[in-house]
């Protein structure tokens, strides 16, 4: 158990430190693409991705750095991609919103809300037809549940009994638009999902280990029963919708709400929990940070040193031969 807790700590710290570094360096104007940070939401990425198998499929959204890193995606290639370099995971064609690492079956993140949901369902169909015991994990935000394609996908997953884990990260906002503007007050994703035949739970939990345990239990169930499950996790992003800044000055979110979430920061909460239960020492945490810091530094160095793709490359890869 100790091991998994350390892994979880390493993952949430890795995601946080990578994104803090992106935020710090964004002003150098070398990362020239829309970049959606998941600072504040790390526990879900880490808890979910460590609870599924290495060869399970994951698809994700515009806010995908956390999912990619948690699944084990190559950090150097991710940073290089955000820098638009030819060594990037998508060779510079995709940027922050189009990450892929097929070595760890991170099958792609796409930039249109809801777009990757049916793609993940298709991977679930493939797994079922191949009987390879893989499951497909689909990350999406709560705004995607306002789209038709989400219901179409849920319907098909239930109809065909597909091995799919739907992971909804509910961070309460679609850009600046709050839930009040977008969804009826009593709307319950859990009830909607259950009534469509997809077992569902809502989780308001910030401890990454708890998230891990819950996901582990349901991932096993999906694999065993070949039936989809939907988990809705409540969470909060600290930064602006897109970009490196804190935008609390815009006042679209209440100060009390921000404080409430900041006070249960997933990293602080988990560190406190680990120290209190003597699972790690302060020194061990420092060592973990040091190790991550050096990895992050070298990833940025790699990205900066890498070459831009040639303008000619824009004309390649339109069709596969």
């Amino acid at each position, binding site marked *: 158990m100790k091991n998994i807790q350390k892994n979880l700590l390493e993952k949430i710290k890795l995601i946080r430190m990578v994104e803090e570094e992106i935020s710090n360096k964004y002003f150098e104007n070398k990362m020239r693409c829309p970049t959606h940070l998941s600072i504040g939401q790390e526990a879900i990425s880490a808890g979910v991705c460590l609870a599924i198998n290495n060869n399970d499929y994951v698809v994700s959204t515009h806010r995908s750095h956390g999912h990619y890193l948690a699944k084990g995606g190559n950090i150097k290639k991710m940073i290089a991609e955000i820098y638009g370099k030819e060594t990037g995971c998508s060779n510079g064609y995709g940027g922050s919103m189009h990450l892929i690492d097929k070595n760890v079956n991170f*099958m792609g993140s796409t930039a249109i809300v809801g777009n990757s949901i049916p793609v993940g369902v298709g991977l679930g169909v493939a797994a079922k037809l191949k009987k390879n015991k893989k499951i497909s994990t689909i990350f999406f935000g709560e705004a995607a549940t306002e789209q038709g394609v989400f219901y179409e996908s849920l319907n*098909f997953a239930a109809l065909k009994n597909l091995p799919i884990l739907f992971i909804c990260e509910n961070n309460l906002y679609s850009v600046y638009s709050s839930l009040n503007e977008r969804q009826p007050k009593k709307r319950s994703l859990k009830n909607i999902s259950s009534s469509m035949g997809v077992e569902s739970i809502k989780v308001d939990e910030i401890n990454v280990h708890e998230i891990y345990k819950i996901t582990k239990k349901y991932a096993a169930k999906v694999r065993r029963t070949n039936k989809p499950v939907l988990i809705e996790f409540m969470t909060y992003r600290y930064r602006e919708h897109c970009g490196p800044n804190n935008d609390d000055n815009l006042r679209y979110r209440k100060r009390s709400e921000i404080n409430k979430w900041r006070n249960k920061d997933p990293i602080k909460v988990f560190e406190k929990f680990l120290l209190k239960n003597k699972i790690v020492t302060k020194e061990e945490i420092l060592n973990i940070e040091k190790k991550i810091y050096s990895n992050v530094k070298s990833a940025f160095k790699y990205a900066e040193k890498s070459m831009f793709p040639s303008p000619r490359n824009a004309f390649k890869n339109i069709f596969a031969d």
Partner: protein
Amino acid sequence: MQKTITYSDAINDALHTSMKIDKKVICMGLGINDPKNIFGTTKNLLKKFGSNRVFDMPTSENAMTGIGIGMSLDKFKVVITHQRLDFILLAMDQIINGAAKWHYMFGGKDNVSITIRLIVGRGWGQGPTHSQSLQSLFAHIPGLKVVMPSSAYDAKGLLISSIFDKNPVIFIEHRWLHSLEGKVPSKKYLIPIGKPKKILNGSHITIVSMSYMTIEAINAAKFLKKYNIHCEIIDLRTVSPIDYNIIFNSIKKTKKLLVLDTSNKSYSISSEIVAKCCENVFKHLLSPPKIIGLPNIPIPTSFGMTKDLYPESKDIINEILNIMNIKQTIPYEKNLSHKHDIPHKKFKGPF
């Protein structure tokens, strides 16, 4: 061995052939296993290949397209069929933001091998939203291939090529082609995507055509031959991409161009072809290139309003006389033993 079969049987043959040679070929579509089997094109697939590989689907065009994309990422080759082209408009996000871009936006790390069969309706009051021929909409998007065969032979060879292509292919069938017969080899054969075919040699004018309009072009050319006017017909077969060499070479010979389109003329494949020809072989043209297609209006439903709406052989003949500056009128009488809104006597609605 060769047999004479209908266009819809040739499609059926292509699906059977592809599913037989590769277990990864999957067919889905609303109604593909119903008693009508999409105008016969999917008959016996379920019986032969089972419900894992041949399945009906919910009326969820957008998600089902995405599901096809997801399956293809795990190396399946997915064929999705829609009874009408118009229905695929519900899936434009998955086609344009997904399938068309996947290979590109991930730097070539993956590819999407799906074929989307779409059927263009015509006649029997199909009307504004059941008879759109929107090939140029798809052809406008880099990353999509758009195929529109006009004969049974090409339909089989091009459908097999589409299914085994590593890229998304929009495969457009015209409802009025389904009952037309042609000679089709029994064995597997491929026709390359992107290559037009010269189907008639002639020296006076180049007709570039696609899908059902090629049938009208052949009729017109047969008639004009009696008057010593020799048309060269190039059937596009694929409307994107297009290998223009055969078209340019033909224009260099005939010096005249008429392009036929199954859709409305504005912003169309035909206007694109005229533009490309003007850019590249303008000096060889002795007269302005012309287009015959539908006017820029939605298709009305009423039997009354569709009369004389769709261009046919007679319009092609008149336009060619016009281009060739022949003042004499040629007495063309189309021997219509059936109403204008059906392709032949046996054709009955409601589809």
